[in-house]
């Protein structure tokens, strides 16, 4: 296993800058997830690490070695593709064994490694079938088997769960996490799904427009997002963003209830533009209490909670996750309250204060 370091990595296609000056270190044995909306450059970044794309500038270092100029077959990495990319004319056994035979290992060693990988991934019964005779989930496991059998310096995953149905996706997610624990391998995982990112990662890298928006553990990113983009990307329903201003040393919401004083500021600053509050931190209260008021626009019953959408006068629609109880009627006047600790203040450019 090895550490992977990216230094000022950039990639342009013509005049399109897909990856812009990305510097990053993935520690040895870490499970690092690249996440972001489509077109943010996460797949390109992964392919740069794999060597499938040539960097326009910058360096890729694996285990301390600069591999930027090396071909993919010289980097000792393994990659699991979104479409699995299994060789259709070979059996499962031969698919998994292929790379080992490339390395000219003795046949006995090859067989034992293949058998071991098959055991870990529950593929022993399918070793002699061809990919066409397998289900999507089984093919996925063959792809993973092909990757682990080589004992590479690191594993790369390119949206491996996208082609699976929801139930299978959840199960396979757990399997991948287990795999990481048992192998202790460095894994870099690309996805657009924030749930996968939150549940699998030791560290998350949020990308947008080819740049890193924030990196950190799932908790760090969720509890202290560094900017508006990260704040709204993680968490469902999305964090509410309310226009705010500063007055008399306190943070106030535009159009807030008259009796409400405001929130104390975490540190003195004059440039507050918005305050973020997560729906689950909000409470529905009497219209005379709370920070802001509005009329209920929608109330969704989710079983374990109520998702209430409130239309306010000055701050747009606000989502509240309320405890399961009787539904709130359409048009009801309600107040919304939350604590000062639940506030995420953001400056006009979108960065956290």
């Amino acid at each position, binding site marked *: 296993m090895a550490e992977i370091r990216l230094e000022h990595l950039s990639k342009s296609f013509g005049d399109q800058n897909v990856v812009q000056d990305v510097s990053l270190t993935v520690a040895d044995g870490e499970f690092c997830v690249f996440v972001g909306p489509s077109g943010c450059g996460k797949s390109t970044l992964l392919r740069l690490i794999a060597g499938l794309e040539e960097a326009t500038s910058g360096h890729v270092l694996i285990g301390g070695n600069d591999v930027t100029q090396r071909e993919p077959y010289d980097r000792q990495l393994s990659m699991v593709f979104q*479409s699995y990319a299994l060789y259709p004319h070979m059996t499962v056994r031969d698919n998994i064994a292929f790379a080992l035979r490339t390395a000219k290992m003795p046949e006995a060693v090859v067989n034992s490694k293949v058998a071991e990988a098959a055991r870990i991934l529950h593929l022993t019964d399918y070793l002699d079938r061809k990919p066409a005779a397998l289900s999507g989930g089984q093919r996925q496991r063959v792809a993973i088997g092909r990757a682990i059998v080589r004992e590479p310096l690191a594993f790369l995953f390119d949206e491996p769960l996208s082609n699976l149905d929801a139930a299978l996706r959840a199960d396979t997610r757990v399997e991948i996490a287990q795999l990481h624990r048992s192998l202790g391998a460095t894994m870099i995982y690309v996805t657009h799904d924030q749930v996968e990112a939150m549940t699998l990662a030791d560290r998350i890298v949020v990308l947008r427009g080819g740049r890193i928006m924030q990196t950190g553990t799932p908790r760090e990113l969720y509890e202290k997002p560094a900017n508006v983009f990260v704040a709204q990307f993680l968490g469902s329903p999305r964090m509410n963003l309310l226009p705010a201003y500063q007055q008399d040393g306190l943070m106030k919401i535009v159009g807030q209830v008259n009796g409400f004083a405001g929130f104390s500021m975490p540190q003195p600053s004059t440039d507050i533009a918005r305050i973020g509050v997560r729906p689950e931190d909000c409470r529905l209260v009497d219209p005379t209490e709370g920070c802001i008021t509005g009329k209920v626009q929608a109330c969704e019953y989710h079983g374990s909670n109520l998702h209430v959408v409130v239309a306010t006068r000055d701050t747009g629609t606000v989502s509240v996750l309320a405890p399961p109880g009787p539904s709130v009627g359409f048009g009801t006047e309600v107040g919304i309250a939350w604590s000062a600790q639940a506030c995420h203040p953001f400056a006009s450019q979108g960065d956290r204060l």
Partner: protein
Amino acid sequence: MIKPRRLENAILAGPLVLFLLAVLGFPMILSLIYGFSDTSFQTLSAPRFSGLENFRDVTTDADFWQAAGFSLRFGLLTAALECVFGLALAVYLAPLIQRHGWIVAVLIVPMIVAPAMMGLMYRLVLHEFAGPLPYYLYHWLGWSPSFLGPRNVFATVVAAETLQWTPFAFLLFLTAYQSIPQDMREAASVDGTRPWRLFWKIELPMMMPTVFVAMFIRFIDGFRVFDNVYTLVGAGPGGSTTSMSIYIYETFLRKGEIGKAMAAAILLFVSAFVLLSLAQRMLNRADR
């Protein structure tokens, strides 16, 4: 009362069926009649039934067997050569073609020229006085081979056909090569597979169906060759480049032996049909 649908279907299928009957069906019947009769150009309307006599004439004619042998060797050799060169070119030039598509246009020019014209052009190229090839060979290497002489003529016609039709195989293989999913190559590459092994163990096996199809088509085309061989050398020294088609042509028009020509044509038809059915069955089994 014919149901409207039946009538519609009849109208839709009518043109093709009528066309085939008129232009093919009727001649098929004629050819059967004449194959089993004794006819000459003078007695066209009154063929005299002669049983299997024509077939006997054909199968005892040494020229017929020589032509069959030529067509067989010619077909196999040209198909094999075209496939090897076509495959090599397609695979090797594919990265280049990705960026500069016009390369394909230049390489398929030989296919667009009429084979008959190609044969005539080769006549020019190989001509002792006016042809560039003897000129350069003599000037640079001191060689003066007789391209159309009895020893070299087979090689010459094989070369001419191969050079003209390699682009066809090239095109087939290029398409097959380009349709291999790119992420399969990427997966193999990340796994440590170098280019040669990638080709030999992954890309080529995936292109095998195309290889068979290409070999088969080019063999059939080579087997029934007429145009470029005829315009280049005609029947050839000692009849050595007479293909099956040329044999039938000469028997029919030069010698006027209608019945015999028909018999040969029927034999050719039957063998081609058998070959075709065999190939179809093999393809069907391969599909599964």
